[in-house]
């Protein structure tokens, strides 16, 4: 079972995130890391590979620092990495990102399974997995909170608000996984030391046969016109209990349509 896991290097959600002058995410001014939601996809890939035979390749598209996301995945146990690095890609929207990922996956080979997180922690759109499956002509099986490989196919559990679906798909397929699917491992001492010796390829657009005119901010289908900082949270309403605290609380909840 050969698995490709797509990962993203994102600004640390714990830090003060910002936008640059062209309204794209500031990736220079803040510390970055492997998107936490992608760790679940890596963990799932490692579990599948460890249960049988196969190889886990981690793939990222991003600036120089994105190599850190690949490194973390290799430290966790992935076998090799591919980093798509090209200045022309900066500011790409989801369709362009999915194009680059699709071409990269074709160049890597024909994986049995493509795994992604449920969303990135910066964009949180969740659309790239679906677009990528479409471009690769693979069944898209998204938001898996449980994944089992059975024979020539996969079975997943997808938790909805009011129902739980069991979805089966043939392989190869693309599966996006939620943060409920597993508990991602920490890199071990051995993993950290071994990661340095693992192969990482860095490819540009020309390696993928993608034209610079198909990607980047200028060619994006969407544009961010302006951004506004979220207003600071205001102090809440304090209810003084003068024997009727319960009533006041119930009135407040009813007024806000909470009950």
């Amino acid at each position, binding site marked *: 079972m050969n698995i490709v896991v797509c990962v993203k290097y994102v600004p640390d959600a714990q830090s003060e995130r910002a936008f640059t002058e062209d309204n794209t995410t500031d990736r220079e001014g803040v510390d970055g890391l492997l998107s936490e939601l992608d760790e679940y996809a890596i963990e799932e890939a490692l579990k599948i590979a460890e249960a049988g035979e196969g190889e886990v390749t981690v793939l990222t598209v991003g600036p120089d620092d994105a190599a850190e996301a690949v490194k973390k995945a290799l*430290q966790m146990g992935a076998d090799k990495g591919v980093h798509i690095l090209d200045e022309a890609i900066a500011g790409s929207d989801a369709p362009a990102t999915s194009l680059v990922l699709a071409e990269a996956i074709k160049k890597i080979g024909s994986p049995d399974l493509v795994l992604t997180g449920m969303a990135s922690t910066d964009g949180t759109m969740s659309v790239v997995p679906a677009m990528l499956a479409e471009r690769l002509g693979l069944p898209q099986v998204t938001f898996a909170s449980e994944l089992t490989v059975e024979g020539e196919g996969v079975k997943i559990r997808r938790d909805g608000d009011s129902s739980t679906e069991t979805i089966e798909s043939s392989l190869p397929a693309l599966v996006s996984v939620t943060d409920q699917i597993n508990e991602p*491992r*920490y*890199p*071990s*001492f*051995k993993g*950290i*030391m071994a990661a*340095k010796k693992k192969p990482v390829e860095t490819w540009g657009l020309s390696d993928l046969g993608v034209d610079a005119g198909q990607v980047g901010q200028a060619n994006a289908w969407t544009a961010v016109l302006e951004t506004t900082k979220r207003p600071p949270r205001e102090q809440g309403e304090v209810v003084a209990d003068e024997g009727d605290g319960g009533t006041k609380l119930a009135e407040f909840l009813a007024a806000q349509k909470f009950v």
Partner: protein
Amino acid sequence: MAASEDIAELSAMVRQFADDQIAPHAGQWDRDKHFPVDVLKAAGELGLGGIWVAEDVGGSGLTRADGVRIFEQLATACPTVAAYISIHNMATSMIDTAGTQEQRERWIPGLASMGQLASYCLTEAGAGSDAAALRTTARAVDDGYMLDGAKQFISGAGTSAVYVVMARTGGSGAKGVSAFVVPADAEGLSFGANEAKMGWNAQPTREVVLDGVHVPADHLLGEEGQGFAIAMRGLDGGRLNIAACSLGGAQAAFDAALAHLRTREAFGGPLIEQQSLQFALADMATKLHASRLMLHDAADALDAGAPGASATCAMTKRFVTDSCFEVANSALQLFGGYGYLWEYGVEKIVRDLRVHQILEGTNEIMQVVLARSLVKGRR
């Protein structure tokens, strides 16, 4: 040898593990006297069970210089859990360095992964600082040894799978002592009650009673009469790790006190603007820095097998555990009344760090070890 080139990443990973898996629970474990064997197993999977153990039997093959940095990070979350991992590593590395290849292959893989835990059994009720006066005996019998006696203050006792026991096979004094590996299921092995302690509540401390415990001859580590030297060699590194656990705990207490002073308002402003408290912080930061430098230097000396390394370890253990206790105690003072409350976590650090001045050789014995080498002109 020195710290490995990866040490920054190794330490950062350990800190993340400590922050996520240990720190949120440390207070409750202290209160409940809970020994978190599941978390220890998870730590073992990361490579924390055999830090200096060679890689052929599942160890991590790191240096002492790496170890003190790793234990400092672990102890920021809980000095007690970190210190138990240190003791486990000490017992495990004794088997690694003194054991035969067959002994290493038999015991270490389970210990390095921390699926099995190890206890170090030297101290007795009547032999603490004067460890060479130990009275537990190991009598040679037809197919091995028969052990009789009792070991006091044994960390992990009752839970461990393996006990490294120092017992007398020969005459009086250090040269009559041998080291044995006693498995938990050995007949005649039993344990006392979990001691009620001032701190170190997240690991059990019990008496280990050996009543006619038979072990095969291949459970002897090294040769007869080498046990005391093996035990002391283990302690050199153990002392540095315990000191590193004091440093991590003290650093956490310092960080908490600093944050408290920034937010606590009194006399018309944040407390941190009070110069007398700033002086206290400056002294604390100096002690932490000096402790760290001594630890790193002593670990380098141990890695290099430098002559006088034992004396360097002894002065380091005393200085660091004393200084870091003072730092933690000062942090408690800076917290005012809140510092005395269990909920804020600082009094726990003070209680945990207090025993580091007593165990793995009291700080008075550290003075003896150092002074002896001075008198003999070895420094």
